[in-house]
């Protein structure tokens, strides 16, 4: 049974939310979620690439010869990633400096290629748009949530719109390891655990 557009969109937000359910795209998930801002910035950049590449792949799906489809997908994705990179440099330079190498690495993010291959190359334009948007927003939310937890416990501060907000007050001793690499793994593990517990009921 074909899913409705709404279902295509909402599945990305919970049932197939990328880092937690599909456990895909972990490289940026672990690396850039030191703060909420970084996480959401990275998520939005990925969403843009995902939506644009899904639309283009879907509209070209009858033209692209099956044998070179991956090469075609990569060209399309790489183009949009470079667009994002240039636009970020022009308008949000400080964020660009923080995300650094992870912006060009969206090209090899398996979520983007995965959606192009598994969904957009087989479905219509509107459905692909809904799919890309859903998965992208799901990815952004996941990165934002992970970033929030790590920043909150790692520093005791949440930075929103470049304004640091003290959450726990000055007597709070931050768990510095939360903003280091091990904290990313532990935090992701715990969140996966919570998601699975909620799903298994």
């Amino acid at each position: 049974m074909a899913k409705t557009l709404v279902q295509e969109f909402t599945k990305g937000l919970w049932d197939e939310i990328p880092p937690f359910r599909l456990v895909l795209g972990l490289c940026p998930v672990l690396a850039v979620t030191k703060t909420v801002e970084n996480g959401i910035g990275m998520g939005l950049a990925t969403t843009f690439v995902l939506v644009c590449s899904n639309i283009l792949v879907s509209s070209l799906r009858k033209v692209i010869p099956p044998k070179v489809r991956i090469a075609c997908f990569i060209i399309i994705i790489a183009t949009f990633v470079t667009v994002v990179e240039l636009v970020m440099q022009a308008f949000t330079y400080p964020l660009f400096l923080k995300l650094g190498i992870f912006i060009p690495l969206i090209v090899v993010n398996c979520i983007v290629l995965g959606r192009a291959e598994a969904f957009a190359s087989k479905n219509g334009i509107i459905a692909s748009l809904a799919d890309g948007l859903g998965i992208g927003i799901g990815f952004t939310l996941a990165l934002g949530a992970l970033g929030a937890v790590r920043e909150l416990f790692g520093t005791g501060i949440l930075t929103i719109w470049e304004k640091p907000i003290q959450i726990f007050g000055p007597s709070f001793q931050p768990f510095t390891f939360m903003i280091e690499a091990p904290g990313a793994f532990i935090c992701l593990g715990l969140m996966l655990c919570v998601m699975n517990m909620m799903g298994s009921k």
Partner: protein
Amino acid sequence: MREMIKMVVVLTLLCTFSGGLLAAIRGGTKERIEYQQLKFVKGPAIKAILEGSSNDPIVDRFKIKDGEIERSFFVGVFDGKASAVAFESFGKGFGGDIGLMVGVNIEDDNIIGAGVTTHNETPGVGSRAKTDPGFAAQFKGLSIKDTFKVKTDDGQIDAVSGATITSRGVTVAATEAGKIYKKLKPQIAEKLKKFAK
């Protein structure tokens, strides 16, 4: 065979389209990216050097062709007169080129401030040339026309302790800045007239 041709054609068209799009976007964002880079990478050094100027030195900038290279100059307006310029020069450090932003008062040719912009020096050792404000402050008030050397080479600049090579790189950059300044001074003075308010 037909399939073969189709593959080639599709890939070629895609690449052409992609190349064209990227070229267009790059053209459209180039100026803004340059401004952003100046603001966030060199901005802090420029602002510190031209402190107290009544204009925005990053907006009021001009370029002069020096042989093959195009150099950017940042204008500082003091007391209604465009009397200072800041520009960057490079010297060889321990881990590559060190960028030094030098501000010069064009009326008496004295340095009004200097600051390291970009470097690849060892963190915590050579990097102190950038973070220790006392080091770059030694250039203040000296004449840009001097040759700068660290004290171990019978010069006038105290090296950052443990980072003689880095410090030498900075003095070379400062000396280089003097050469650029002497060479381009007439053009700088000419351009500055436009900024006087």
